[in-house]
């Protein structure tokens, strides 16, 4: 096809091909019909995945991006199609996920005139995108697409919106498909590491006797995992991870203390509380790991390594910092670091591991933790684990050990319920040969379960474990603990029979009701690979997540185990 015969929509598809796009997730609509037509007329190899809701499409793209490390593309129509992506864009923005959202827009001449399905998506998304474009002419498309991918994937990654008016997609394209970028204000130089800063950090490390390394998602994005492991082993320093940092350092490693923070392990939080040096590699000191920011690690030398200069001093003012790529900085540190005498420190922490282990009882009913541990055991811990948001997410973070980057997907910053199931589908698209398991709650699953159709159409062998306690459990836990057990708006009465529902879509539906059947049912689910399998796990209604650092308290004030059983005594009367 001669170049001068293309229209804007066809040029868009060609440009996306040039970026190596494999899948596009979305839903068509009036103003995007020209783009969908271009899928056909260009004969592109890009596969369009028709979703059932635009929010789910963005989560699917997010899951694809997190599981592969490659940018993902969403295509939706104007107005409601575009506004439905907002939650997914914000979720990706909070967790630094590379995503390109292409939204159709009404004719440019109709902008601002309340045209049918017009929404100012460029304006609406402004606070939750890394950057955005309203394209004015077909010939701008190659530059815009190239810039969008560059911006989404470099520096600190994030979502980029391209709003494409219909006159641009149907207008004639008369220039070259290759275009130069024009980004004078965006010149990330992650390799420009301040050597003096690294030197100062290395010197501080050499003086530490109780060091802790804290790793976040930045280490995963930068592929700093090998360097972090080498540094931890060279220093003989323990490692704690954030919720999104799981996989940056193998959690089965003897130096791993697991996740820290509000529902982190007791030993991770105790380590952070007692350390004399905290080396943060690629975490943004989220409030869920700090307790009270002013009291966090107050006796320790705090060091912050981050690629985003605006994160330095945002939550915690560090004693030392270095702006740059987590892998490059860690590799430089590795050269200068030497082994520390941490024997006493590790002994003390191992004592905490022994004295304050994660625990629950398998005897009184089916527990979420039990299901997670059994799935972990039966999959050898090698599956890609995806979670939704809530109690099951925290239990998954506690009990599911992640040894590899890209094998743990969870909505952290945004805490978006409804994320888990579509994200798992996206992960399965991106990694068709790998086993993908999703742990979701009965609340969150119902927010995006319409994607059962998408999963069935593409026969995605995702295993979905619905931790069905017929409650919005995390809110119920807070009501019980901090609102004198006044329950309000948390009872999920009216839940469907999830196994039957799955079967209605053409998926496999299983039920798990008794602790004794855990191994049997999970084995059955794992053996089914002809499409999605949904396991409705009837877990106990009122289990609480511990340890817990109550909101507004210091990490030292963590509640390690359930304070007592008094509540359970009055329960029969209440229920």
């Amino acid at each position, binding site marked *: 096809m001669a170049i001068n015969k293309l229209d804007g929509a066809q040029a868009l598809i060609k440009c996306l091909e040039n970026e190596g796009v494999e899948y596009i997730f979305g839903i068509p609509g009036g103003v995007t019909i020209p783009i969908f037509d271009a899928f056909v007329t260009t004969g592109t190899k890009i596969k369009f995945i028709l979703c059932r809701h635009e929010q789910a499409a963005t989560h699917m793209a997010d899951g694809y991006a997190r599981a592969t490390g490659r940018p993902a593309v969403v295509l939706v129509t104007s107005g409601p199609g575009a506004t439905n992506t907002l939650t997914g864009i914000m979720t990706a923005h909070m967790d630094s996920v590379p995503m390109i959202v292409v939204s159709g827009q009404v004719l440019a001449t109709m902008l601002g005139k309340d045209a049918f399905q017009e929404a100012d998506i*460029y304006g609406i998304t*402004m606070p939750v995108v*890394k950057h*955005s474009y309203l394209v004015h002419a077909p010939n701008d498309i190659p530059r815009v697409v190239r810039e969008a991918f560059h*911006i989404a994937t470099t520096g600190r990654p994030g979502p980029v919106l391209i709003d494409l008016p219909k006159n641009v997609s149907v207008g004639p394209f008369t220039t070259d498909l290759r275009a130069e970028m024009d*980004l004078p204000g965006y010149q990330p130089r992650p390799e420009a590491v301040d050597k003096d800063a690294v030197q100062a950090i290395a010197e501080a490390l050499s003086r530490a006797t109780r060091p802790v390394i804290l790793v976040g998602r930045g280490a995963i994005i930068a592929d700093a995992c090998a360097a972090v492991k080498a540094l931890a082993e060279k220093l003989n320093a323990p490692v704690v991870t954030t919720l999104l940092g799981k996989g940056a350092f193998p959690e089965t490693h003897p130096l791993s203390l697991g996740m820290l923070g509000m529902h982190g392990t007791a030993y991770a939080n105790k380590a952070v509380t007692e350390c004399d040096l905290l080396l943060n590699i690629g975490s943004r000191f989220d409030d869920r790991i700090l307790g009270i920011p002013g009291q966090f690690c107050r006796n320790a030398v705090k060091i912050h390594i981050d690629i985003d*200069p*605006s994160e330095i*001093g945002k939550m915690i003012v560090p004693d030392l910092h270095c702006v740059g790529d987590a892998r490059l900085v860690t590799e430089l540190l590795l050269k200068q670091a030497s082994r520390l005498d941490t024997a006493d420190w590790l002994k003390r922490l191992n004592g905490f591991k022994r004295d304050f282990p994660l625990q629950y009882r398998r005897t009184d009913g089916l527990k979420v933790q039990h299901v997670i541990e059994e799935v972990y055991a039966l999959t050898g811990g090698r599956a890609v684990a995806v979670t939704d948001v809530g109690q099951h997410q925290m239990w998954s973070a506690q009990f599911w050990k992640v040894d590899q980057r890209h094998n743990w997907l969870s909505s952290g910053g945004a805490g978006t319920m409804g994320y888990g199931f579509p994200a798992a589908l996206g992960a399965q698209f991106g990694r068709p040969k790998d086993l993908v398991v999703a742990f979701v709650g009965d609340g969150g699953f119902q927010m995006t379960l319409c994607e059962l159709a998408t999963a069935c159409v593409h026969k995605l062998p995702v295993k979905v474990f619905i931790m069905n306690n017929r409650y919005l459990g995390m809110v119920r836990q807070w009501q019980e603990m901090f609102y004198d057990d006044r329950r309000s708006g948390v009872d999920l009465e009216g839940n469907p029979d999830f196994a039957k529902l799955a079967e209605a879509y053409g998926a496999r539906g299983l039920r798990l009701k008794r602790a004794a059947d855990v191994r049997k049912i999970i084995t059955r689910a794992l053996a089914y690979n002809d499409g999605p399998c949904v396991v409705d796990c009837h877990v106990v209604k009122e289990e609480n997540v511990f340890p817990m650092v109550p909101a507004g308290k210091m990490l030292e004030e963590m509640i390690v185990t359930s304070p007592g059983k008094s509540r359970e005594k009055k329960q029969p009367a209440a229920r």
Partner: protein
Amino acid sequence: MAMQQNGRKDGNTHTLSVTVANKPGVLARIAHVFARRGFNIDSLVVSTSVEGNFSRMTITATGDPAGLGQIIQQVNKLVDVIHCTDHTGEDIVLKELALIKVHVGAEARNEVLQIADHFGAESVDLTETSMMLMATGDSEKVDAMLALLKKFKIIELVRTGKVLMARGELPT
């Protein structure tokens, strides 16, 4: 009103110079950063720079210095921002222009002109009942002149907000 906000040296007023790529939406993005952190923009001047593809903004804002440091970082992070610099306390020239319409008849014209003359302001419009003055220079000077003009009725007041430039070889 603006008279009280401009030019107060309380340590919390900062004057920023922002160079941006001349693209749609860049002003909205910058305004978002200030609004989200609860900072009030006291004055804002935008004009194209010598190189046609860029614009220069001078922003005066009030708020605690730590929060403002964060805002500068976040403005710098915006893709279309070339750089954002806080020039507070630096060797700079900082000026503004004000148009002041005073209710004045023939009997008091001389006194108003005397005040204007003292502050180097000009009369740019004159009617039977009013006079328009144009004052330029430091904000403090404009404030002082306005204080003297208070005894007359000020009908309208427009101030451009401050513009700044670093002195000598220093870049702005």
